[in-house]
């Protein structure tokens, strides 16, 4: 898809290592990602799979610009990437409306844009008059719905998602999954980190399989997922 155009973001031989501890003589490191290459083209829906601790979350942190790599280059081409986060920076004492502004602004939205979208956000959350109450009076489900409604309003060039397809009650879960699916199917660019191969098969046009911080396989979804499942089954049998 769109291979002719230039990538929104491209990672070349990117490495990340975390400092575990420091002895008197030298620091000990934990290598999380090694020489990872990734090109993200407009309209891509890339699934990232791999076992726990393979480096998937670190990859999202890199893309979101939370950390810089220790080696290699990230070419951002002026595009923005943001993690889909729920209830980011919520203040329990303040009402829903104020939290929409607070959380939205932390995610990088301008205040005017948020005021404009306010009615839509409130309607999507389905909170009604409760929006004027302090968030501390909300149930967990209500908070999750408000958080998700805000998160959906942010519109970065690349949306990063870390397995959050199930929030709130059944109706809201369906509604939000539908919206996400629509986003991913349209020309939005999305990176989805997931354990669920079923979700990845349904939603992604490309898949990156990471193992021990290295790209084990990358390419067309079904091919990569098939190999991944095969490898997992083999390991379980051993």
């Amino acid at each position, binding site marked *: 898809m769109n291979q002719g155009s230039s990538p929104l973001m491209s990672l070349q031989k990117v490495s990340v290592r975390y400092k575990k501890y420091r002895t008197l003589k030298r620091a000990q490191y934990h290598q999380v990602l090694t020489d990872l290459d990734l090109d993200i083209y407009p309209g891509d829906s890339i699934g990232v799979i791999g076992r726990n601790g393979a480096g998937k979350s670190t990859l999202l942190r890199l893309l979101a610009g*939370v*950390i810089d790599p220790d080696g290699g280059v990230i070419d951002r081409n002026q595009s923005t990437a943001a*993690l889909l986060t729920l209830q980011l920076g919520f203040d329990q004492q303040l009402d829903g409306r104020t939290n929409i502004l607070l959380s939205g602004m932390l995610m990088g939205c301008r205040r005017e844009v948020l005021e404009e979208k306010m009615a839509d956000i409130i309607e999507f959350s389905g909170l009604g008059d409760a929006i004027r109450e302090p968030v501390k009076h909300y149930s967990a489900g209500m908070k999750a719905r408000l958080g998700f409604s805000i998160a959906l309003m942010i519109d970065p060039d690349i949306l990063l998602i870390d397995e959050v397809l199930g929030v709130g009650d059944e109706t809201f879960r369906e509604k939000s999954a539908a919206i996400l699916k629509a986003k991913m199917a349209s020309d939005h660019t999305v990176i989805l980190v997931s354990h669920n191969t079923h979700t990845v098969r349904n939603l992604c046009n490309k898949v990156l399989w990471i193992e021990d911080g290295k790209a084990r396989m990358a390419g067309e979804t079904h091919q990569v997922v098939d190999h991944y499942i095969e490898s997992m089954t083999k390991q379980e049998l051993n």
Partner: protein
Amino acid sequence: MQRNYLSYVWWFLEPVFLITAFYLVFEVMLRRGGDGFIYDLLVGVIVWSWFGSTVTQASTSILRATNLIQLIDVDKRLFPLVDVFVLSIKQLFVLILLSLFVVFSHGIDWSWMWLPYLFLVQFLLIASLSILVAAAVPFIPDLHIIIALMIRFLMFCSGVFFTADSISAEHRELFLMNPVANLIEQYRVVMLRMETPDLTALSIIAALSILLFIGVSQFMHQHSKAYPRLTMQ
């Protein structure tokens, strides 16, 4: 989840209780420290508490934001500055209450015109030291314990419980090199002795604070992406 019922009313009640307690103990019960000592004491305690509470709070401001900075690329200077502004607004109310209490007994004078300037200089000092400790603590986690100890130590050598002229002349200059001690003294000069404060000292404190603030601010900007790694668990 409700932390307290009166919320912002406490901003007024807290200093009122403080002033009442000091008044009862030192003026009514002990009758210590000579005439008007209670006012020197109150100015000292209130000016100190703005400094002490803000710097202590700011030292953990980035640690408290750990979860947030793992998720978004946000300017880390935001966190100490929020603490500084919130506590400074609160302190402004306390200072107004103190002023009313002092005016009630001492009256008011033109020297009080310097009060906003004192407040500004103290704000600059607090902001610069707050951002400094906030920037440093994530690198050396044990530092916030050391800072808490140092602040307690500083309280005893900043003239909260005594005035500068009770110190022998040879040590007074050294004593006033401590910017917090100097500021407390200037507040007493302006509010109680109704005189012009030491403008040179105030300007030096202001200038050094601004320089320190700019330096640390620059450092935090350059190392912004180091903080998520430092605070990651």
